[in-house]
């Protein structure tokens, strides 16, 4: 879901960059000293995840992990995703430097939404609800991300529904897989390191 250089018009690029700058400012403000290593490791995971290609479905798609980023990091997911996407653009030529702002916002904003929607439920005592919420978190983050990409492309003259259908259809396997990854990761952390999930709430 990296939008390439030269696809979007200037107003879209500027809007995306401004929104990302705002998100990063909030993210850095909420970033806790103790969580910097965690942020760095999740940034690395996000950076590498785009190399894991999923050979299902009609198009070429890869893991994104923005749901997991949102769940574990909250607002600091913004600067984390920005750095990871910057490196992907620089080292792999995925996306582009000018479209960095838009791409970051497209991935990080769904992460934040999912954080607010699901983080409490994931942390909650009921195991079944917790697992369901974790799955929904990974799933929804990709779904919203796909819709954001479609929205960004509307301004280039593509009809929203057409693009949205293509992007969402292509990412259906990713949604399911990321739902499962988020489910297992959250379950694992909840059993072994529940404080990782708690830190997020303490810092809200």
């Amino acid at each position, binding site marked *: 879901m990296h939008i*390439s250089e030269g696809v979007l018009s200037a107003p879209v690029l500027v809007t995306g960059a401004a929104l990302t700058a705002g998100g990063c400012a909030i993210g850095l403000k909420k970033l806790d000293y103790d969580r910097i290593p965690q942020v760095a490791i999740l940034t690395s995971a996000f950076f*590498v995840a785009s190399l*894991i290609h999923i050979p299902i479905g009609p198009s*070429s798609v890869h893991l994104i992990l923005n749901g997991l980023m949102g769940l574990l990091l909250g607002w600091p997911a913004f600067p984390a995703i920005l750095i990871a996407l910057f490196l992907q653009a620089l080292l*792999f030529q995925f996306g582009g430097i000018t479209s960095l702002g838009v791409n970051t916002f497209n991935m990080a904003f769904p992460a934040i939404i999912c954080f607010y929607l699901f983080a409490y439920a994931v942390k909650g005592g009921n195991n079944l609800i917790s697992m369901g919420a974790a799955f929904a978190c990974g799933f929804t983050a990709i779904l919203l991300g796909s819709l954001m990409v479609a929205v960004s492309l509307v301004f280039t003259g593509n009809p929203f529904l057409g693009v949205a259908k293509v992007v969402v259809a292509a990412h259906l396997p990713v949604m399911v897989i990321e739902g499962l990854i988020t489910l297992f990761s959250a379950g694992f952390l909840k059993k072994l390191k529940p404080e990782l999930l708690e830190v997020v709430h303490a810092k809200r």
Partner: protein
Amino acid sequence: MPKGNPSRIDRLSRTIWSSQLLLILALLAPTSHALAHRVVLFAYVEGDTVFTESYFSDGKRCQNSRIEVFDASGNKLLEGKTDKSGEFSFKRPKPTDLRMVLTASMGHKDEYVIPAGELSKGAEGKTWQSDVHEAGKKVFQEEKRGAKGAPVGQLTRHEMEQIPSLVEDGLDKKLEPTMGIHVERPSTGVSFIRVIGGIGFIFGIMGIILYFRSRRGREKEGPLHGS
């Protein structure tokens, strides 16, 4: 709960360990024989036809994607759509630089330029056969004219020595356009070293932030601990 009041370093190392597990998990997820995500447009010339190939960086072909062709001054010459195997070809419209732009689904884009020089080279490449043919004729005629003793159809030592160089010349000419292809075919940009480099970069940033935060923290905490 054995939670007491863990020191900062304790908490830090625990955070590191558990997050590392996540990273490993991400790395071990579905095997990645083919890698990831951008589109690549590639074009080459054969005779007077320009062939283009479009693929995602994992090797999957871009089907039914738009390709536009521009000349050196940016005028659109023609446009077309890739077929099922991501290919699209057209007759060379003009002897200028050709800039081809691929627009694939989901906001992917790439372009490829064939300079005018390469276009004419491609056209020359077709004539290698006649060149070799001519050379062969020459040798044959010389033989007919000059050779004493050597019966027609049998080769003198001098001629035998000429054959390898003739073949080599012919092959060079034939392969010239292809050599360009092997050198210039765009890479998909992903390599192990870059992945490691990127991760190192992220941890470098982390180290710098932690360094400055810890110094600032110590300055602030200094008098506090003293009292």
